[in-house]
């Protein structure tokens, strides 16, 4: 009897282990979700009522962080969802490992997607290998200012320095100490251009010190939080930052009552009372142009830029923050100056 019970128990344990093993295997292979959220390949998610999937433009997106990161990846997901014509969108996000991203890019191209978006500067080398194998597919690659000479690649980039400059001007206007802190990830990509513009804007409007801390990581939230703490300890009374790990810094800013300036996506929801303004990327401005070119038979070969003048960059002020009128006016003047060319945010 005892042996029988032990045998049953062993079978149960084997069953549980088998289920776990399957779970482990599934997690290793990536997970599917309907809204394109988690790491892994998703089914086409965006369709319009009455449109059959066959008639929709098939777009696939491969991105390094989560689709709703309030930063880099979300800016592209939002943009695709804003396109004037509905599309069938597939997403693989959370692909910090370049080899995983390369696999996804190749699979999407082979699966019949007309446009594959490789949303990350780091995917460039992979794209150089993959794009020539699929001459009928248009690849969009950013942030990058060149197409690597590939005929079926469109490059895109933001002039993030423009919004950075505006945010810097407004930050200096509301700073009491004149000391402003910046939390950056790795010194690369649009984080550098945003921070350069922010630094220039703040100094142009009277800031005495802009302390810039690159944490060395795009994803370490705890380090970003400690960077913000260190900046505040050293006198910063206004903060900004770039990349998805800044939520840690926003949390510290929120605790300490320090105003925050965002970039890439509107970060007001993180603290509706302390986020002053966000530079928002509207990639749809250049996506529409790229799609139009593809329809006209041009599959790539051109680099596009979003900026304040073409509406691809927008400064979204938070109405929930009591921004003094003169600070807002300084921001508006900076926007006008950049658009008319009288201000060089990189200068």
């Amino acid at each position, binding site marked *: 009897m005892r042996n029988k019970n032990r045998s049953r128990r062993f079978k149960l*344990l*084997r069953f*549980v*282990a088998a289920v*776990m*093993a399957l*779970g*482990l295997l*599934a*997690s*290793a292979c*990536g*997970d599917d*979700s309907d*809204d394109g*959220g*988690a*790491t*892994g390949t998703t089914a086409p998610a965006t369709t319009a009522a009455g449109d059959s999937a066959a008639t929709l433009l098939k777009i696939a997106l491969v991105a390094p*962080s*989560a*689709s*709703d*990161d*309030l930063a880099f990846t*979300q800016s592209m997901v939002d943009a695709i969802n804003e396109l004037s014509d509905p599309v069938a969108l597939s997403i693989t996000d*959370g692909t*910090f490992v370049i080899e995983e991203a390369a696999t996804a890019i190749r699979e999407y191209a082979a699966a019949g997607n007309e446009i594959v978006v490789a949303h990350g500067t780091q995917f460039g080398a992979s794209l150089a290998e993959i794009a020539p194998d699929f001459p009928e597919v248009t690849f969009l690659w950013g942030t990058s200012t060149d197409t690597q000479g590939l005929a079926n690649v469109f490059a895109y980039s933001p002039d993030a320095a423009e919004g950075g400059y505006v945010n810097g001007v407004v930050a200096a206007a509301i700073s009491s100490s004149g000391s402003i802190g910046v939390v950056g990830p*790795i*010194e690369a990509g649009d984080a550098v251009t945003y921070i350069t513009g922010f630094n220039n804007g703040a100094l142009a409007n009277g800031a005495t010190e802009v*302390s*810039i*801390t*690159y*944490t*060395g*990581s795009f*994803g*370490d*939230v*705890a*380090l970003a*939080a*400690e*960077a913000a*703490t*260190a*900046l505040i*300890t*050293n006198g910063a009374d206004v903060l900004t930052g770039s990349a*998805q*790990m800044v*939520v*840690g810094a926003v*949390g510290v800013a*929120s*605790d300490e009552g320090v105003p925050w300036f965002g970039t890439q996506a509107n970060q007001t*929801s*993180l*603290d509706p009372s302390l986020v002053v303004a966000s530079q928002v990327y509207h990639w749809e401005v250049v996506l529409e142009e790229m799609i139009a070119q593809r329809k006209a038979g041009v599959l790539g070969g051109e680099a596009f830029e979003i900026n304040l003048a073409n509406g691809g960059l927008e400064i979204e002020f938070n109405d929930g923050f009591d921004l003094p009128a003169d600070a807002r006016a300084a921001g508006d003047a900076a926007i006008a100056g950049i658009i008319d060319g009288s201000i060089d945010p990189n200068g």
Partner: protein
Amino acid sequence: MSDFFTATVLFSTLAAGIRLSTPFLFAGLGEMVGQKSGVLNLGVEGVMLLSAFFAYWTALSTGSLWLAVLVGTLVGLLMGVVYGLITVVFHAEQGISGIGIFLFGLGFSDLMFQEKVGTPKFTSKLPSVDIPLLSDIPHVGVAFFQHSAMTYAAFVMVPLVMILLRRTTFGTNVRAAGENPESADSLGVSVARIRFSAIVIGNTLAGVAGTALVLELGIFQPNLTAGRGFIAIALVYFGAWRAPGVMAGALLYGVVEATVITWKALGIIPRSLSDISAMAPAVITIAALVILARRVKPPAALTQPFSRH
């Protein structure tokens, strides 16, 4: 550089280092208990992620931080049971099983976050518990006596784990199972039960580590732990399988990390060296590990499955 050597900056850097060391300490102590019994767990990172997510989700859903701590701890315990089944009952290869647990934790916490939360939202954070009188000492109070309850608990765990392993029959059996399981078995010790228990304790502490991390930040993101679970495993080797050694390693890593961040904020580290300097905590810890590793040996039966013949 002179900006750094002010009492305010020095002690706030020390406070940051202690905060940063908390998850390392919990996870490292837990991993040490498991390794002392002969079981290597490379899944610490995955367990931390799972506990972090479920603690965060609980705090977000209920507003109760203590319930969040309980849930995060229980998730760690549950994963300990799972890992115990895989490695002790079914004798699966420990390295591969641990990597499987890590991948499961990474993927499942990410999936759950996207499904249940989506856009990052803040929840309440663990409040600072000021120790009466001591917290009022200028500078020193900020550095040592104004932390969350989880941080104090991490350091209280050090003597508790020492007592557990050195002063109890269970601890003696754990060490015997890790050094010479055949002898332990011949003396009537159930090696499987001891190892299973040690794994559960270790994973529970890994769960507490993830919980402490997420509730200190008040927000979850995919891959929130950013490699801290793996560093905790390295700190067990650094600490020579002794609780004070693990604590020293955790503090060293945390304080170096905090110092680098502060130096960057003060402009002491040039921007051109910014990314390289981010590696400093790992480089210093590995260098110390290389020096120390020659003097100590791991448990003799570490990674070796045991079955009665």
